[in-house]
């Protein structure tokens, strides 16, 4: 078991308090960044670390920050995406509940690097403990002079606030999140302009996932190269939290090198399949990621390897389904979720997700028709790549992968009636 970085304090008593965090070396990185490093050096270090966004899209963090214009007519903002809505994903919560200061410290360093004076953490509304832990941590940080005016006597200042969401998956999409944060209905904006240019309240805005930001203090403390090397040999990119759920013996969040093989995660860490049954299917990166057949689980859990076999790393959330899993029912649950959460702004996702949900529900009820599977694929194709925000793809990919890879099972269902 490699040395833990993000979850090393999990399970420690009062791990969420400032005292414990500082005892473990907390806020050292902040001091280093603010007292010894220029903002652009911080960005360079993060660039070197190979850190890619942990929220789903996997965009290199350092590169994203460098898009922010130095001079802008409107204030710049940092917005931490703590909406954690992707089914199967429960990793950010572990950080926020157990080590909220790690996120606060990461946010301060990030803000300093980009010249930001106001940061928001947009937290999934149901995460009441995360919200209160973050609020407490922010208060402690203010009291200690890590937030507010003249931080560490450097003249740099930063305010930070927590904003609870109201329970919409789409508000995890970065531009919908900004709308919601501005007090509007959470629906994605069109791009361009990108948030880096016109974001929150029209100002240039960086949006990063909780886990992405939580990596920053470690990168600053130990160097970008160190972080990059924590990734699997030949893969790099540091460590990553993998929330594992489904039919495994030990579901939970596992911190492992990026590039750890999926099979190893399931069998060595999550204890294998319950009742020692066989694996039928695995969703490797949150509910939107195309499903894998058991033959595919030797894949390495990194962005490129998963993309190479037509799936994706997404949030890194692994959902394991054993040989007895009813995939028709599973897909119905997934699609109903997307139909329910579609914001309705653009045509293909608004109409297509509801339509697919109706078809799959009918199939499950034994009223399927032979043409239904092609209809599902046609609808998914009609959505894929043609929507305003990536949620359309997120809804289409499970349908395409389930129906293509497990077509026999769907056909049997229809034949059985």
């Amino acid at each position, binding site marked *: 078991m490699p040395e833990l970085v993000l979850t090393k304090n999990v399970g420690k008593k009062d791990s969420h308090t400032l005292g414990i965090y500082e005892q473990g070396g907390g806020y050292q990185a902040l001091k280093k960044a603010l007292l010894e490093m220029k903002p652009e050096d911080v960005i360079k270090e993060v660039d070197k670390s190979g850190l890619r966004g942990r929220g789903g899209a996997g965009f290199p963090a350092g590169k994203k920050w460098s898009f922010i214009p130095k001079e802008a007519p409107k204030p710049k903002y940092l917005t931490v995406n703590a909406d954690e809505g992707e089914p199967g994903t429960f990793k950010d919560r572990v950080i926020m509940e157990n080590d909220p200061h790690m996120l606060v410290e990461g946010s301060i360093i990030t803000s300093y690097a980009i010249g930001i004076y106001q940061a928001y953490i947009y937290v999934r509304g149901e995460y009441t403990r995360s919200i209160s832990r973050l609020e407490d941590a922010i208060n402690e940080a203010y009291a200690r002079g890590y937030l507010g005016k003249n931080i560490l006597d450097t003249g740099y200042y930063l305010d930070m606030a927590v904003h609870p969401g109201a329970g919409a998956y789409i508000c995890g999409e970065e531009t919908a999140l900004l709308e919601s944060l501005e007090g509007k*209905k959470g629906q994605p904006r069109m791009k361009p302009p990108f948030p880096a240019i016109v974001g929150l309240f029209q100002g240039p805005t960086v949006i990063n996932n909780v886990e992405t930001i939580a990596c920053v203090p470690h990168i600053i403390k130990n160097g970008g190269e160190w972080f990059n090397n924590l990734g699997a040999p030949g893969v790099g990119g540091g460590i990553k939290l993998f929330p594992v759920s489904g039919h495994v013996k030990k579901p939970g969040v596992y911190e492992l090198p990026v590039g750890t093989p999926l099979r190893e995660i399931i069998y060595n860490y999550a204890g294998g399949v319950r009742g020692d049954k066989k694996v039928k299917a695995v969703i490797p990166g949150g509910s939107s990621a195309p499903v894998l057949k058991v033959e595919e689980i030797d894949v390495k859990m990194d962005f490129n390897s998963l993309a190479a076999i037509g799936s994706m790393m997404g949030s890194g959330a692994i959902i394991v389904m054993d040989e007895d899993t009813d995939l028709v029912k599973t897909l119905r649950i997934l699609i109903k979720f997307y139909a329910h959460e579609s914001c309705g702004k653009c*045509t293909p996702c608004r*109409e297509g997700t509801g339509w697919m949900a109706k*078809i799959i529900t009918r199939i499950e009820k034994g009223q399927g028709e032979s043409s239904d599977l092609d209809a599902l694929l046609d609808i998914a194709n*009609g959505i894929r790549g*043609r929507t*305003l925000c990536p949620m359309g793809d997120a809804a289409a990919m499970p349908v395409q992968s389930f129906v293509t890879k497990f077509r026999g099972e769907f056909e049997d269902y229809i034949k059985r009636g």
Partner: protein
Amino acid sequence: MPTLVIDDQKVTVDPGTTIIQAAKKLDITIPHYCYHPRLKSVDMCRMCLVEVKDIPKLQTACSTQVRDNMVVFTNNQKVLDARRSVLEFLLINHPLDCPICDKAGECMLQDFYFQFSRHTSKFKEKKQKKHKVVNLGPKIVLDSERCILCARCVRFLKEVVGTEELGIFDRGDHSEIGIYPGRPLENNYQGNLADVCPVGALTAKDFRFACRSWFLCQENSICPGCSTGCNVLVHSSERSYDKTLRRVYRLTPRDNDEVNQSWLCDVGRYGYHFVDDPDRLTAPSLKRGEEYVKVDWDTAFREVAQRLRGIFERYSPSSLGIIPSPQLTNEDLYMVKKFFNETLCITNIDFKLPGWNQGQGDGFLLKADRNPNTMGAELLGLSGIGPQAGEIIEKTRLGEIKALYLVGSDPARYLGEEKIASALSRAQLVVFQGSNYNYACKFAHAILPGATFVEKEGTFTNAQARVQKINQALRPLGESLPDWKIILGLALTMGYYFPYKAAEDIFKDIAREVTGFSGLDYKKVGDKGIKLALSGG
């Protein structure tokens, strides 16, 4: 300036131009729903997706700006597939009730389905149920099941009117347009909602179930509702399709960047009903004792001519008063001036009744001056010759003016019935010429029916001194005639000949004689009008 290739054709456009605009320059229409040239692009409907070479995903033509050397395909298989699929999505939950939809025949769903898709739907499920016949206010009805959620209506009220009464409520395939509870539409621009709605979701109560759109002819005209002179299309039919006997079914806006963009205000839009109102004057009539008898034009002209001449001979030109209306066209007013003032030397001639320009303006299109041709009346010299119109009425009351000739004007509207009664009852001769019965007619010895703006040709000059043309959409109702023709007939009966066969002939003389209009050509006024170059403001 970037040069790009769209469907194998080269085009050079200004930087910042979007693909949809560049394509338009080449006469390539990229189908769209949410895009509207006067609203901000929102990328919602996904109908305008096109392929841009070297970009894997299709791009929205409405918001993607052109680049130099860009290569765009608006009609290849990939694009057609996406378009078909968007149309299929838009139609799965649509009620397909075209036979009873007011938008049928001018619906962008019908048109693009016909042009690009003609698919057989594979939808076998139950359609989403949504609200129908929702009253959004006094003028507009919503059918949410027909709505394609393009948000044009929401954006129009936000971006153009600024009142923001509409929003999209709920989400996903149960999203619906609606008003906030207890806050119905109350603004003066609601009629535009039925125009911007590309489908039959928002319909105007004024037009609902009144007529199939394809039975209507469209003619370019100008709204007579105020001095802005919004450019309109008159939708009409000689034969009425409902029991109301109406021939005009609606006015819709005609684009004019300089005047009304693509909009109309409701005061103007719904102000046309006087055209087919039962109070229209349809035949010349003369007072015989207490009765009015209908006569032919010759009889009417002869009698009016004889009585006018009698008063002339007994008194002097100063015993006659003429009050024309700024509702008349330049050509009508020119005839009034030419004949009564320049020929008969009457100087009691003026259009400015007290309060004539004191409606309520709204700061956008609607002006306080509710007349389409005040500027024309001013430029043609129908004020400032002698006493103002109010004084002419007063002089009539005092008996100084013995004969009063009203052309299109309705003095009781401004001065009240009592005042008009006391003045007009003293006159030896009152002639009322106009389109609709009004209080002054009670005192008229002769009533001469005038045609309305949809029944004649001519020009108005709006508040910005823009000369704009109205065209004849309908035959004049009954025996009514364009006002200039009535004056022409009366003049002839009195022995004065004017060589005019059409409004255009009069316009030629206006252009020759009236400063401000000099050098104008009727044909060149065209569909968008011409602004007069006035010196000294």
